[in-house]
């Protein structure tokens, strides 16, 4: 369903071009969970941003194609990308505190994507609230009504991250991109988030692109994994196989 081909991203920061991502190819099939693992500076977040259509910056050049069910995200005009964002791709950021607006209620932020498309979808306030509560419950926020009326600082880090996942899911996207969604969280909370993502994938068949620096988390969640280093794909394949028989020296080093 998603095919990334020859993706290359270059920065122009200090007059010299700096390659962030080079020759990246991979595919995500329907209903699959793909992991990207790499250390800081490996270009994993850049790749995710490119797929989500968030790289509309003047200080970088990009080439290649990112094909999502027939539309090329990388080379589409902004208006087209905005249609895809939210509708077909949901995005969850690393830091649940900074990715939420502290002065808006959690419920309003979960509804955000629906509110923008209120007219085309013909939604009423009631519909939106019901849908938001439904999604929030589905990601394991049991007292969704209370959290709907809370501000971000009133709920815990784990709850915030679930709320962000709910916000990414309200429009039932086909692909959910999670950029280090559990790095800022404690391990016990991390496990619950991973379980939620797993369950979501099994129930609704949503594909997930999961980015992490932690190979053991990837192993617990993903079917396939792409190992990246310095902007290049080092190794790709089935998680279990790579974990048991890493062919590249670098992958071995990543396993603790």
């Amino acid at each position, binding site marked *: 369903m998603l095919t990334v081909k020859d993706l290359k991203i270059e920065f122009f920061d200090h007059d010299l071009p700096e390659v962030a991502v080079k020759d990246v190819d991979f595919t995500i099939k329907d209903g699959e969970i793909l992991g990207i693992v790499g*250390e*800081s500076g490996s270009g994993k977040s850049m790749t995710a941003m490119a797929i989500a259509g968030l790289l509309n910056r003047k200080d970088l050049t990009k080439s290649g194609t990112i094909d999502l069910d027939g539309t090329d995200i990388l080379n589409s005009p902004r208006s087209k990308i905005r249609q895809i964002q939210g509708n077909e791709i949901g995005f969850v950021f690393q830091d649940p505190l900074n990715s939420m607006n502290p002065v808006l209620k959690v419920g309003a932020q979960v509804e955000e994507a629906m509110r923008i498309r209120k007219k085309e979808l013909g939604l009423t306030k009631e519909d939106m609230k019901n849908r938001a509560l439904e999604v929030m419950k589905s990601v394991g926020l049991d007292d969704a009504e209370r959290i709907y009326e809370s501000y971000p600082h009133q709920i815990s880090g784990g709850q915030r991250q679930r709320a962000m996942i709910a916000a990414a899911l309200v429009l039932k996207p086909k692909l959910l991109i999670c950029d280090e969604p559990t790095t800022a969280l*404690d*391990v*016990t909370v*991390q*496990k619950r988030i991973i379980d939620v993502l797993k369950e979501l994938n099994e129930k609704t068949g949503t594909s997930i692109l999961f980015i992490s*620096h*932690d*190979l*053991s*988390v990837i*192993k*617990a969640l993903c079917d396939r994994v792409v190992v990246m280093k310095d902007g290049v794909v080092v190794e790709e394949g089935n998680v279990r196989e790579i974990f048991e028989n890493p062919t590249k020296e*670098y992958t071995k*080093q*990543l396993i*603790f």
Partner: protein
Amino acid sequence: MSEKVCEVKNLTYIYPKSDKGVKNISLYVNKGSIVGLLGESGCGKSTLAKCISGQLKPGEGEIVCKKIGYIFQDNYASLNPAKKVGWLLKETIKYGNPEKFFEYEKRIKNILEEVELDESVLTHYPNELSGGQRQRIGIAMALLSNPDILIADEPVSALDVTVQKQVIKLIKKLNERKNLAILFISHDIKVVREICNYIYILKDGELVEEGESETLFTNPSSEYTKNLLDSSYLE
């Protein structure tokens, strides 16, 4: 059997205007051992480290410690960004070990060898170095005052996995070579399992479990430890 370099008895510290802090903690570190302090965010492990190193004055309890070296978590903020590495090391000798100041050049050379850094780092600013190099300099600065115990507050959690491994190897080596006691504070079970001989587990300001590294991981007694192990996707 062996000599205690640090002992904490019934320590209690509650932050003013809150009920958070650490309650009734007792622990000790033997010479030459690496003791782990494991817990999730907000469990009070940093508070404990601050009490032991004297940054906070404990409300109750007793702390008996020999000379302490301290390694900070954030290797960006723990080295003064406006000064060159050479200056920082020199300053550390000047105030941490003034009687040896006359031979500071030799000391700096030795210490760099010990933390496996090249002498070229001396003329650089901390921001020009990589995370691993900065953390090594942090360790060097802690060692320069000839401590008996090293308190390492999350020394590797800001680093990449491959760099983490190198720094852990270095800490282990220092421990063996100098018979240096280390109190290793971390939230990461994998790291703690890798490095520590004896482990204390902290939750909400209280010790929930302690024990030898192997027995604790193979046979945890408290529910919380089991939960923690279960969540960490260990092999």
